[in-house]
């Protein structure tokens, strides 16, 4: 089943317009991704380069002493993508690649990417081993494996990935469960970094990720119902009935 990739956020009547905060959260996440490599918490992150951002990004990598290793081309998409999009002749494309501190790590990443070696890639990206194994096990059957086996969750907001499609998130990987200790450790390190970059937005992100929400995936579209908006995006198509995850209200301790 093929659905044109999309993300939409539909505001609820009488609720505040949070689009500016969402944009800030998305930018903050991008900065966290970068800083964790720059500061040595992990060996690699990924990025997409295209004609319009090529110079700006390469200049920044050079200034910071980082290396970009192109791995493969991907067709353009808007919003969120689960997989690389096929490049069609004559149409614009990105270069997807690894951003690392060393050339060696970049080359290892590239080779692992070519071999679909999730274990090596997960290691370079600093993901917990349990989550990398979970990804390897689930992704071929479901390319959006959100907390498989869980439906009613009271978790720590740092781990909440239900709004990742819209840019509101702390961690970049798919945790093996909403209670993964390895993920929580990484997430808290990332919150420390985020607080140094933009404490106000960090606080908003954590508050939002702790609020009650419902993730409902059916027929290739996931709806995430939050207090202020309904988020929609394309996803793995559950056919016979919706798969639902209820994220319960959680107080930040």
């Amino acid at each position: 089943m093929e659905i044109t990739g999309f993300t939409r956020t539909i505001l609820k009547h009488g609720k505040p317009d949070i689009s500016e905060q969402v944009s800030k959260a998305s930018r903050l996440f991008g900065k966290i991704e970068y800083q964790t490599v720059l500061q040595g918490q992990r060996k690699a992150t990924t990025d997409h380069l295209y004609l319009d951002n090529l110079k700006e990004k390469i200049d920044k990598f050079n200034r910071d002493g980082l290396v970009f290793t192109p791995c493969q081309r991907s067709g353009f998409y808007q919003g969120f993508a689960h997989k690389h999009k096929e490049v069609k002749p004559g149409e614009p494309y990105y270069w997807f690649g690894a951003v690392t501190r060393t050339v060696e790590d970049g080359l290892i990443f590239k080779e692992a990417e070519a071999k679909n070696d999730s274990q090596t890639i997960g290691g370079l990206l600093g993901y917990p081993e349990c989550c990398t194994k979970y990804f390897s096990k689930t992704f071929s059957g479901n390319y959006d494996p959100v907390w498989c086996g869980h439906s009613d969750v009271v978790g720590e907001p740092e781990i909440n990935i239900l709004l990742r499609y819209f840019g509101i998130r702390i961690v970049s990987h798919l945790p093996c469960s909403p209670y993964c200790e390895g993920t929580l450790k990484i997430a808290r390190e990332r919150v420390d970094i985020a607080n140094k970059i933009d404490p106000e937005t960090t606080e908003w992100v954590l508050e939002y990720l702790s609020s009650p929400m419902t993730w409902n995936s059916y027929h290739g579209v996931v709806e995430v119902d939050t207090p202020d908006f309904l988020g929609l995006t394309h996803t793995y198509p559950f056919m016979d009935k919706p798969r639902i995850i209820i994220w319960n209200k959680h107080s930040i301790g």
Partner: protein
Amino acid sequence: MYLLKPTLDCNLRCHYCYENEHRSRTDDYGKYDISAVLQEIMSLEDKSQIVLHGGEPLTLGKENVDAILKTVFEKTGCSSIQTNGVLIDDEYVQMFEKYKTSVGVSLDGTGDLNRYRCGESMTAKIYSDIVRMKDRGLNVSVIAVLSKANAGSDSELELFENYLKNLSEKKISGRVNPCTGDPNCSLNDERLSIVYSRLAWYCYSNGLQWSPFTDIWNVMRGDGRVVCTFRECDIFHTRSAEVILGDALHTNCMRVSVKDLYMRHPSEYKTRSEILSQVPQEFGGCQDCEYWEYCKGGCPSQAIDGDWRNRTESCKMYKAVFSIARNIQSFGVAKKTPCTSKSNKQSHSGGHSDGIEHIDGNMRHMDSNIGGE
């Protein structure tokens, strides 16, 4: 089409009304700011048809109704209202004449057929007003909801057929929508198919122009003048209707916003069509359906389990009517073509440039020229 819904309050509150959910969700459904609504009307950039809707719009009171119709008239050269007709009196009729108002009245039949809406004496008064307004030269159309009250038995259905015929003889037509808001009032799947099939035969063989039968006829002939039900509706950007609420904010057709009321998304997406065309029918989709090109899964507000990612729950009924229309078109047994009136071939000055009509709105009048054409 813009649907102005300054108030969702209603003096009837029928059990099957889809707006009951909205009314139960908030106490603010009756609050409005008329000056903000008037300002919003004036600021609209296009001149699509603007329909004063509700709730029951006449509960706004004559001063407010006059102000709204006047503003719409000054902007577009005509105006429209959809009402249950209970409060219509001479003063309102004069107001409608003054502002060239097309009047859509919701009435499920005469006598006892309309019992889910109101009693027989009020029903008689409303019917009489419909005829009176038509006689005075106003554009009048009718929306009837098919339920157990008017189609639960064959004898009631026969009376309902006569109701449609009598109105048609007075050059009044409109829509026949299935009741979906209350299981106690709704016809079951089997009965709905029987009822719509019978009405389809009745309308096609007598040349009566009632939606959705005219729409089904049109869409199968490649004619774009089709109600929104069959037009790939995006519930977050309902093309056929943009609703303006009492606080002047914009939302979508309110049939589809039951759990929460969402603001209008700026862009229209075809996601539902993409899904339904690929999901097997056994899982709520339309894959390989012979009527897909015409139906596109039907109205999302009537989707199976209330989930817009499924096809309409009225699928069986629509398939039956599509089948009848196809047979008639193949063998040419219709008394006359159901949708060929001269004025209907034109887009009236109030909008509908793409031919799409809204299931809850004043339909484009098939027997008259709206807006001074």
